[in-house]
């Protein structure tokens, strides 16, 4: 010690990194080495006489107090790191060795030798932190994390690794990555592993086989692990992307399917984004506008077709984009051949989608249909559309006006069942049924009935409508009211009939002139010549004169008849009518035959209600009955007494007057159609009597009636006279 001077110790203490101090038994600094200034900023002199404990961090104080109390017992103690006040920068971590030198007379205190370990502590703490981070990254990573040695064997794996591979047992150190790789991928993975081992990080997808032999797709990041500049192993992170891949594939499939569907739609279809740029178009749309897909996609429709900015289509697209509600639009473009397009515009996420169809033809057809419909509904004719079974589907207003039936009353009904009635001609009905059965066009005139029961004449045109294959689809029937025409026709027919009758009458007159007038004249002429050729004394002479007289009498009779007939016919329109009691007039007629009846021993049966009266011409009724009774008397049978029946019965139109006898009778086959003709005689040698029944018929018709006859040779004859306004 003597070899060294005091300065040597001073410098030694000053430049030592260790801090040296002596604390007396009361805890006061007795000595502080000068190195404290460099370490903590305090001057040694400041600290001497101060309590050492005051420099210690309050949190660490209890531990230090305990150490120091122990220091009194032991020779030497080392404190754990604790914080010591520093003059400039807060607290410093110190570690102190305390040596008990209380018993050393030269020292009389505790020698403390402290070292500043702050830097060491911070360094150690940071290393711990790195370790913790790494551990967290390794263990808590949601993906599988693993490390491999350079030979490719697993060194460590985390929990997720087990989960992905569904392993139960802890992986053995001799498991190689190739053992869990899906065999087809092994070669590829080995190559990647080699490159990583050579220092190149890699990211790739591979397939693994899990413990349940299921193949999974994992995304792997493989990193080289360096130590001291050399690769010592490989670390990896693997993510199970099986589901994601599947989902992606599914999505791709869906997307592809959707694209195919939209493509296969024959209707043009396209989609626009918010700035009207094409995001999709199918081929049909390309074909319509004659642009390729590439010309459209990504470009604004309104830049391609600027004129469309003036269209309703543009306005509706904006509306859809703003309101988010679909819109339907039909627009005609007069500058483009009047083409009419019918759009459906609907919104979707990211834009609007549009499909449309060319309705030009339909529109033309629709307008045509509207016109047709207008014609069909407004025409005065009745129009009926039937289905293929012949039941009504639709009728126009004309039909309703005509028939009185409204549309809802007749739908589902068969027109002929609805409209035809009891006076409709059966043959016409049959004809109509037959034509419907044949499914051919027909037209006919038919008597139909209104809802009110009123009859009307209709001309019907029925056309079956068939498709291209000839299958029946509908019937269209057009009904025209021809009642007026029919009336006119009936009047014409009546006129023609009248004319015919007039003509017949004229013929009758010709006949009278040519035959019945000429016959007696010819006879008279002949007889007057003959009379000159025979001697006045001869028996013939007298006979000839007789015959001559007869002929002239006949001539007179015929002329009288002509007068009678003419008077009846001329009376047609001016005939006076009065109330005639049928029983009374019958009695008057019969009374004139009273003598003949008595002579013939005749039985006369009268069955006439005394209340039966008729507005008619009495003189004609009298003449008619007189003629019939006269005939009965004249043609009575010589084999039996005459029985004459005079009967009147009521029918729904008036009276039926029957005059029947049991006389000679006639063969109806021989006399039919001839009986009521002028000068037709059915019994010879009763000359000039052919006028009777002609007169009867003329008179019956004049008073608006009808006469029928039934007769049989040897049985008798019955005349039926139908009296009444409708018996024309």
């Amino acid at each position: 010690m003597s070899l060294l001077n005091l300065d040597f110790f001073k410098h030694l203490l000053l430049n030592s990194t260790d801090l040296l101090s002596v604390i007396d038994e009361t805890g006061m600094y007795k000595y502080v080495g000068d190195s404290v200034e460099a370490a903590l900023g305090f001057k040694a002199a400041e600290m001497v006489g101060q309590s050492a404990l005051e420099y210690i961090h309050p949190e660490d104080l209890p531990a230090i107090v305990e150490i120091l109390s122990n220091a009194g017992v032991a020779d030497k103690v080392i404190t754990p790191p604790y914080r010591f006040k520093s003059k400039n920068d807060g607290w410093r971590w110190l570690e102190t060795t305390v040596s008990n030198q209380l018993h050393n007379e030269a020292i009389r205190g505790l020698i403390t030798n402290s070292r500043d370990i702050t830097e060491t502590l911070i360094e150690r703490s940071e290393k711990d932190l790195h370790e913790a981070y790494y551990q967290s990254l390794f263990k808590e990573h949601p993906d599988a994390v693993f490390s491999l040695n350079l030979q490719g064997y697993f060194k460590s794996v985390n929990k997720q690794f087990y989960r992905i591979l569904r392993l139960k047992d802890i992986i053995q150190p001799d498991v190689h990555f190739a053992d869990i790789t899906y065999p087809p991928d092994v070669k590829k993975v080995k190559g990647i592993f080699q490159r990583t081992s050579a220092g190149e990080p890699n990211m790739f997808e591979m397939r693994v086989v899990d413990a349940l032999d299921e193949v999974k797709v994992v995304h792997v990041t493989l990193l080289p692990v360096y130590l001291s500049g050399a690769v010592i192993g490989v670390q990896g992170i693997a993510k199970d992307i099986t589901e994601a891949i599947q989902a992606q594939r599914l999505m791709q499939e869906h997307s592809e399917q959707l694209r195919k569907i939209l493509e296969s739609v024959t209707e043009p279809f396209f989609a626009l984004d918010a700035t009207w740029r094409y995001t999709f178009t199918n081929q049909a749309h390309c074909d319509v506008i004659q642009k390729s897909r590439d010309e459209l996609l990504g470009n604004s429709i309104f830049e391609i077709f600027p004129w469309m900015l003036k269209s309703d289509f543009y306005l509706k697209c904006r509306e859809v984009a703003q309101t988010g509600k679909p819109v339907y639009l039909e627009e005609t473009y007069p500058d483009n051949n009047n083409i009419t397009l019918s759009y459906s515009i609907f919104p979707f996420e990211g834009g609007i989608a549009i499909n449309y169809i060319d309705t030009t033809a339909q529109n033309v057809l629709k307008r045509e249909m509207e016109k047709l419909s207008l014609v069909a509904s407004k025409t005065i004719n009745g129009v009926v559309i039937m289905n293929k079974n012949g039941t009504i589907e639709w009728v126009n207003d004309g039909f309703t006006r005509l028939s009185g039936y409204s549309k809802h009353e007749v739908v589902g009904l068969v027109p002929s069942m609805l409209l035809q009635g009891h006076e409709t001609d059966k043959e016409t009905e049959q004809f109509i049924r037959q034509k419907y059965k044949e499914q051919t066009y027909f037209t006919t005139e038919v008597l139909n009935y209104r809802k009110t029961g009123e009859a009307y004449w209709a001309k019907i045109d029925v056309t079956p409508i068939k498709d291209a294959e000839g299958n029946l689809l509908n019937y269209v029937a057009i009904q025209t009211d021809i009642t007026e025409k029919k009336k006119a026709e009936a009047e014409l027919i009546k006129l023609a009939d009248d004319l015919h009758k007039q003509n017949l009458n004229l013929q009758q007159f010709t006949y009278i002139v040519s035959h019945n007038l000429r016959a007696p004249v010819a006879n008279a002429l002949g007889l007057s010549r003959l009379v000159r050729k025979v001697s006045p004394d001869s028996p013939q002479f007298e006979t000839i004169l007789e015959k001559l007289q007869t002929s002239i009498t006949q001539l007179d009779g015929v002329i009288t008849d002509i007068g009678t007939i003419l008077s009846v016919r001329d009376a047609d329109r001016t005939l006076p009518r009065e109330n005639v009691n049928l029983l009374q007039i019958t009695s008057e007629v019969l009374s004139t035959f009273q003598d003949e009846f008595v002579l013939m021993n005749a039985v006369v049966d009268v069955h006439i209600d005394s209340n039966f009266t008729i507005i008619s011409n009495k003189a004609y009724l009298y003449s008619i009955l007189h003629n019939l009774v006269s005939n009965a008397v004249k043609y009575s049978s010589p084999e039996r007494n005459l029985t004459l029946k005079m009967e009147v019965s009521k029918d729904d139109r008036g009276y039926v007057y029957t005059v029947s006898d049991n006389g000679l009778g006639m063969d109806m086959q021989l006399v039919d159609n001839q009986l009521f003709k002028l000068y037709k005689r059915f019994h010879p040698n009763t000359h000039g009597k052919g006028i009777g029944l002609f007169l009867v018929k003329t008179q019956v018709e004049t008073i608006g009636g009808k006469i029928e006859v039934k007769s049989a040779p040897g049985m008798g004859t019955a005349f039926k006279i139908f009296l009444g306004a409708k018996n024309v």
Partner: protein
Amino acid sequence: MYNKVFIIDDDEISIFLAENMLEVIEFAREFKGFLYANEALAELIALFKRGDYQHLPDIMFLDLNMPHMSGWEFLDALMPYEQILSSRCQIYILTSSIDAEEIEKAKKYKIVSSFLQKPLEDSAIAEISRKA
């Protein structure tokens, strides 16, 4: 002189007149009048059936307008015997009718020789007599 003459007419006076006119000039040996055409027809058919052609009349005067069977119907009924009659019998229509249509119609019957109007004219009778 003819053997037999039929006069068919529903008018008795006409028969009487014709018969007497013809008798006066000795036109035939026998005259037979028929008020009904069907009776004349029955007699003719009976002769046809027997083949008794020599008893057929040489001349028939036929009226047209008669009840039951008209002259036309009578002619129609004789059509089957046209052949037999044509060489043996002449039929003359004798009618008061002056209807042109009937004159035309009569021409269609071959067995009808002529159409005569009543009353029989002497000249017509003389004409027929010359053919005898």
